[in-house]
């Protein structure tokens, strides 16, 4: 059992979860994820590691409410326990001196890219954050990034934000102003990963996406997270989750992510009927 130290709504729909998992906390590296199970018969939910504290023995993740499991997670409170919190899983992100790194983050990805940002900064990179939020009030962790980034650009619908559009349109504008851009890291919803990859392809910018196919065991055994990278079959849980965004077969990823939509909806309807008044 893994004690929840904190569960808090950051902005609408996005919640922070801090769990006591000392062994995971000791081993975490940027880009990895944990697998949590709420109860003995709940499903396994992969969540990117957004932060950890080896001293406290805690791991932090930020999640978006999108279905039954995440609704359940959002109702837990400090003191409650998770049945399982396994990790760290997946290959860590590559951290090196790339010159300037552009971090494109949306949704939970703003938190998920934070460990990589910290490590990349330590490795001496110049960092630019392009945060994709629908409106300014939905941005979180700006304070954390301000200490790490040389530039923060917020793509939102608000006036004053330089881009009243989706981040993928902003990428080329931001890139044009950065001389030594060596790498782009993207995390967030699958559509953002795909759209940014398509935007950087003509610019020839190496773009690493943190892929989020449906996962079941997260240890390379079930094949649920199978995806096609440059024509080769890869298991995102053990071969990734970081992949070259220009090599990903996006239509296949979208298809596979939507494969269980009917069951997800049915499960959610049942859960809401049973668990709410």
């Amino acid at each position, binding site marked *: 059992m893994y004690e929840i130290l904190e569960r808090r709504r950051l902005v609408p729909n996005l919640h922070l979860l801090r769990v006591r998992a000392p062994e995971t906390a000791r081993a975490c590296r940027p880009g990895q994820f944990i697998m949590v199970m709420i109860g003995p018969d709940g499903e396994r939910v992969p969540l990117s590691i957004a932060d950890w504290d080896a001293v406290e023995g805690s791991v932090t993740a930020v999640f978006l409410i999108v279905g039954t499991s995440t609704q359940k997670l959002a109702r837990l409170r400090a003191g409650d326990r998770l049945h399982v919190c396994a990790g760290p899983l997946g290959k860590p992100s590559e951290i090196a001196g790339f010159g300037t790194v552009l971090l494109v983050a949306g949704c939970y990805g703003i938190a998920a890219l934070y460990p990589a940002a910290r490590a990349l900064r330590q490795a001496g990179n110049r960092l630019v954050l392009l945060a994709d939020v629908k*409106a300014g009030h939905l941005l979180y962790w700006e304070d954390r990034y301000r200490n790490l980034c040389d530039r923060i650009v917020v793509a939102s619908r608000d006036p004053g934000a330089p881009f009243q559009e989706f981040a993928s349109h902003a990428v080329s504008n931001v890139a044009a102003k950065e001389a030594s851009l060596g790498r782009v890291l993207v995390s967030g919803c699958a*559509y953002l990963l795909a759209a940014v990859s398509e935007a950087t392809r003509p610019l020839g910018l190496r773009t690493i996406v943190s892929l989020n196919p449906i996962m079941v065991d997260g240890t390379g055994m079930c094949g649920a997270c199978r995806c096609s990278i440059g024509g080769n079959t890869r298991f995102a849980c053990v071969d990734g989750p970081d992949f070259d965004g220009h090599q990903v077969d996006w239509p296949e990823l979208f298809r596979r992510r939507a494969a269980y939509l009917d069951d997800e909806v049915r499960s959610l309807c049942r859960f809401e009927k049973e668990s709410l008044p």
Partner: protein
Amino acid sequence: MKAVIDGRVFEAPGKTTILEAARRLGLDIPTLCDHPRLEPAASCRMCLVEISGRRDPVPACATVLEDGMHVATDTPALRELRRGVLEMILAEHPSACLVCADRNACREPKEGIRKTVEPTGCVLCPKDGRCRLQDTAAAVGLERIVFPEAPRSAEPRRDDPLIDRDGGLCILCGLCVRVCRDLRGASVLTFVGRGGRTTVGTALDLTLLESGCLFCGACVDVCPTGALLERAARHVRPDERKPLLCALCGEGCLLQAEFDRGRLLGTRPAPGPANRGQACVKGRFLVADILGHPSRLTGPLARRDGTLVPVSWPDALTAAAAGLRSSDGPFEAVGSAQDSCEDLWALHELGREGFASGRFSIAEPPSPLEVIRKAAGVEAGEGWPDVPNAGLAAMKTILVFDEDLPVTAPILGLEVHQAVQQGARLIVFGPGESCLDRCAKVRVRAGLESAAEFLLEILAGLARTAAGPGHPGRAELGPAARMKPEESSRAERAVFKEKASRAAVILEKRKPAAFIFGPRFAAGTQGRRNAAALWNLARLTGAVLIPVAWEANARGAQALFGGGGKNGCEGAPLPAAGSLLLAGDGPPPPCREGAFIVVAAAYESGALEAADVVLPRTLFAEQDGTWVNREGRIQRMRAAVPAPGEARPLWRMAVDLARAIGSGGPSASAAGEILAGIEKERPSFAGASRAWPDEKPVFLSATAVSRTGFASVPEAGECSAAEEGSRDPDDVHGLRAGAVLKSLRAVRRR
């Protein structure tokens, strides 16, 4: 009256608003806060139009078109104005997706995350694609928003049954507040907070349940955005819609059923003639739960060696026919006032013609209509002057006896509320609480056993003045109006007398009046006394009588058979039955030891214990059929929802049984054939085959009630207290919906 709108001539007698007139010309003026059944509020300002000669634009919804007016509804200035108004609205509503260049490309990949709790954009919102705000943004041609997004509300509230509230999506159009207060008479929702924090909520920030919400769903259906949504169902998108007639009470609401690949997702009210776009908690939220309840029977059962085992339909029919044929003693078929006319007629024919000593009865006690007819001595076979919903508006006084109308007759309830808003005086008599209490001029809190006393008290007062010596029937009224000394304390009597005299004053001055009463008022022998007293008061004041039965087809059953109770069982008790076909829910009629019992049921229940054969039946939405609502409106409906498993309509079982027995009885291959037979034998059903929604509204053709005299009121001593059965208005063919459905239990405050 003649005016010009956008260069087109509009001519019509009477008053119309500019909006109405424009719509009739086929012009599309964007609106966010108008509703066909509500007074205009002109709060959204989207419908601004220009009138030549006036400096400022005016709201089309709240401006009456005048003779000679020249109106422009679509000018560059107006478009700019509307865009500006919409931008202001969208400053407080998640609006990124409305102006995002990627909004179409990202929709499909994001389908899986539409199940979110707090939508922060259209792609995450359950209302996406069916949102009035989206439509309006498109109509106005919005491309950018100059104000930053400043959300108004905290987290969504999901602490009530059935309804989720997300103030973050609210645009303060006020439709929900108005529909709840002005149409439903519940006044649960109100604006709370001030300025930028204003949102829709309840007084003291209570839950809807604590605030007296009826969970009628009217607010959910008028909400132009996703601020008020139906729990769970919000996550599913229907791919098909069909009309469905609700048979969960006597109102006969037209609903629209929504399906996803053939599976019923839910229902919402449709603009049917009886309900005009409204419904109640059951019709709005619970039809799918009721039809799809896990206790539904899906296949026939027959008793083998003492236990019921699944069998095929042919085997079940053979077993049933053999058992019915070979048992001694009379056969009795028992239907329910919830059944369609075709079901009842086929059962009745089976009883009448299938067996030498067959008979037919209805499981429920006599309907309130039947009770008052008997009490008044109205001949069987005579019609009844039904009062259509629209007729309530003309009433100046309405007297309601212990019917919690929002529960037992929700549409009548809202018509009563509308009438009260238009000035009708309301008198409410009964022991329980009701949301009508608030607007009652006279509220008598007393048990129904003293209803007759109250009525006689009024009668005594009125008889002195209204029914002078020359008044017809004065002679009968005299003894009937004589009061009996009561056992109650003198103080109570004084209050009672005082309320009765106030009621008398109102009744005398404010005509016409309507008297509304239901099964509790009419129950037992006391009910006959109540009914006789009410009849007399109606005669004296010219009031119309509106009996409210709880069952969907009580009116139809009454018109077919003088419905309710053990038909033909009045007077000498009939010999106990030797075999039974039980299709109604209720205590079975007296039968012999070892009688052969066939049960036609929709749900598993205790009734199955005595059954030799069980036949699974379909329910209202699953079969073609005809129901007659409280107004006497004959409504036909086609099957909309697939039957569970092998369930069959009751009328078909009766036809199949008659064939298997090899005797006379019903024969038909479609419900329509049975209806044609009914039409032939029951003149009041003339034209039923053409009944709405096939063509035009058809009502039971009522011959005027010829009886005009007063009824003799039985002495109190002759009456026993009402034999209160265990019936509940939420029962559905044996399913105690008010007890087994969690949300309905909560809504009924159980």
